[in-house]
């Protein structure tokens, strides 16, 4: 029993160590180091050796001394058995091993006798591995997007693995792609258009949605139940089936290539979510507060403006941010409706840029960074509101 859990412990822990060290090696390769071998077996075997030493030493010496000593030993072994590598790389290896051995803290020969220890080991290391894995898989493309925008096409074709940035160059040189997309490709205009459309959509959607949500939440009228269920069904209907009729009708009405046309479509497609989210919140406001308003002789307009809106500002904020994000990221309708570069939104402009095979990739990535950054900033800053918006608006993209 003990041998089995010991083996599981050794294998899983060294597997985990091998994974982080491989990721570290890959990231270092992208900084221009020319490694050609991941040396998985080697790392795995010294990993097993390290874990074994760790368990055997147990509590005989101070934990801090133990982890420093072991990490140091590991780094030196790694340094001698591996390809030649610079000191900052080995320092990274040392820090990673330090982090790793620190995680092993709770394991010792005694603890391996506990109930279900094998399962606990597996769960523990899967958690650690999962966090590293998810963080890497999610952040890696964003990292590549950002770094590519600072490189040049030629440098990347010569060595597609070298993403190291040369900070000794002056800033104009480093940010050249950004200057180019703003100067030659007119991105200032596209940013303005995208902002106008998105902010406009937020305002118009709120203007329509707040009264409607209030009516659905508070008033009794014929067709109310039908309305609230059909809201749910409407958001199931996808943009792609609306595109052809809207395209033909908008062509005949001359609404294509206009920001106004886009605004109408965005508003209509976000309205159901907005109403759904708001009415849920309005229902949670105690009715007595409104009764006081009615006593004061307020009409519905006054009640909404003076009582409901001030009380539900957090919900309105989350709807606004959510709608802004949908409108800012929207692509399908802007692809269909906008043909002339005069009225492009950012997303459409980037797609247009990519249509020209001659466009160097760093410009494309600089454009992508420009369109991504505002959304990510808003998201990070207002995460609390947005997350509640996302969960409440549940179904809509």
């Amino acid at each position, binding site marked *: 029993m003990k041998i089995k859990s010991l083996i599981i412990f050794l294998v899983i822990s060294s597997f985990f160590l091998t994974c982080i060290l491989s990721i570290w090696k890959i990231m270092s390769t992208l900084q221009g180091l020319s490694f050609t071998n991941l040396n998985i077996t080697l790392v795995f075997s010294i990993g097993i050796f390290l874990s074994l030493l760790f368990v055997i030493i147990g509590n005989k010496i101070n934990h801090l001394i133990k982890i420093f000593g072991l990490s140091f030993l590991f780094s030196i072994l790694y340094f001698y058995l591996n390809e030649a590598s610079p000191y900052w790389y080995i320092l990274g290896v040392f820090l990673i091993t330090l982090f790793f051995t620190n995680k092993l803290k709770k394991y010792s020969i005694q603890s391996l006798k506990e109930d279900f220890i094998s399962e606990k080991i597996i769960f523990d290391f899967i958690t650690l591995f999962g966090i590293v894995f998810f963080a890497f898989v999610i952040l890696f493309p964003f990292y590549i997007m950002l770094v590519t925008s600072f490189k040049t096409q030629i440098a990347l074709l010569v060595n597609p693995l070298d993403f190291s940035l040369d900070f000794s160059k002056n800033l104009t040189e480093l940010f050249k792609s950004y200057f180019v997309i703003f100067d030659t490709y007119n991105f200032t205009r596209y940013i303005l258009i995208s902002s106008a459309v998105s902010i406009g959509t937020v305002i118009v959607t709120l203007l329509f949605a707040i009264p*409607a949500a209030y009516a659905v939440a508070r008033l*009794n009228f014929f067709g109310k139940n039908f309305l609230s269920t059909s809201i749910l069904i409407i958001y199931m209907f996808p943009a792609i089936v609306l595109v052809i009729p809207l395209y033909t009708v908008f062509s005949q009405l001359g609404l294509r290539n206009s920001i106004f046309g886009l605004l109408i479509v965005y508003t209509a497609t976000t309205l159901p979510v907005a109403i759904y989210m708001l009415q849920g919140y309005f229902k949670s406001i105690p009715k007595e507060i409104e009764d006081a308003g009615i006593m004061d002789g307020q009409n519905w307009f006054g009640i909404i403006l003076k009582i409901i809106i001030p009380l539900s500002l957090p919900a309105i904020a989350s709807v606004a941010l959510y709608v802004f994000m949908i409108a800012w990221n929207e692509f399908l309708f802007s692809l269909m409706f906008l043909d002339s570069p005069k009225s492009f939104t950012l997303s459409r402009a980037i797609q247009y840029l990519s249509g020209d095979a001659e466009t160097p990739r760093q410009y494309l990535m600089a454009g992508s960074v420009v369109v991504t950054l505002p959304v990510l900033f808003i998201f990070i800053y207002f995460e609390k509101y947005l997350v509640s918006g996302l969960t409440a608006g549940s179904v809509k993209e």
Partner: protein
Amino acid sequence: MSVSLSKLEKRTAYTLVLPAVLLVFAIVLFPIFANVWISFKDIELKDIRIPEPRAKKIVKSISENESELKVIYKLRNSSLIQEIRNVQFQDKFPKNISPIDLDPRCNFKSKKIICDFGNWEAKYRENFEIIIKNTNDERIDKKIIKSRKPILSGTANNPLLTTNFTLKNFKKVFYENNFVELLLTTFYFTFFGTVGAIIFGILAAQLVNQNIRGRTYMRGILLFPYVGPVVALAYTWTLLLDPNSGTLNALLVNFNIIETPINLLGQKYITLSILGFEFKLRLALTTVIFFEIWRYFPLAFLFILARLQAIPQSLYEAAEVDGASPTQKFIHITLPQITAIISILFMIRFIWNFNKFEDIFLLTGGASGTRTLPINVYQQGFAVSDIGMGSAVSIVIVMLLLSFMFIYFRLVGKKANED
């Protein structure tokens, strides 16, 4: 008293709701019905303009002192397929000017030339000429003549509103469009995309739900792919996966994991041999599915996490006392608590993946075996410019969606009754 109050309430309610309802009706519901209409018509992208008569005015001098001018109107029917009936023409001139030898179809009255051109067939063209003369033999300013635009009017059928219908589009959808493959690709994409997103969502939620440092940051980071703009993310991935100079292939070749770069987005099949069995994998489709999972597992994660955090801790403590292993805890406590949310997520994601257009369009454009129904709507409607056909495919999508919803509500309703 109370009757009039409830009447007032109703009236208020309708005033509040109506603007939103009308807008949604016009932009969301109307097109769904309009699709049915268009799908039964033989109509192409170039036919959707209403035909109109057009004229381009050219002014030439034909006398020395420019007291006589020749005005040429290049007339045409803007439509290549539809006639315009009863074309009326009108152009205004300054005073002291009169036409010479006016065309019999026209007459000159109070400084205006008014013509009745009758019917123009499709593609109709004519160079219509008028010679004008200053009655006082003075010079006519060409610019003034040129600056006045003639007014044309005529009646034409709106090609969208004619009532000749055909079943041609639906026949084409089912018989000439590789319909079975289209449907299968759509289902592969939808099913594996949905299941993958939910599995990764459960894993991620399970991770973040533990007591680890920095879990709020982790939650934020996990949502990045979902909140980022699809255009930026899709192009980044295209670059990353590019066979010639993409980072991923370069890394794999560099570490000798593969010998030659793999065109992950441009190759339809790849032959894999596992345990001696060879089978063909839809490579580009698989890559697109992975992108889809990457982009949408955060949504599943968020919902499952919210549910996990609502599970009372006492359940786990009780299990601990009973001596349950971590796996048993997961299977007997966690899973039953999240099945409801998973079934809702499955439904929502299934429907949304079924309709996914942007992601596939930006990654492969529907090439190398990634053509799904929504991509086909775009291809038929805008690439082949057969609007009627595109609408017919849309109708197929709507029908399938309605049947999914029906089945789902049937199943969920049944389960709710049993509980």
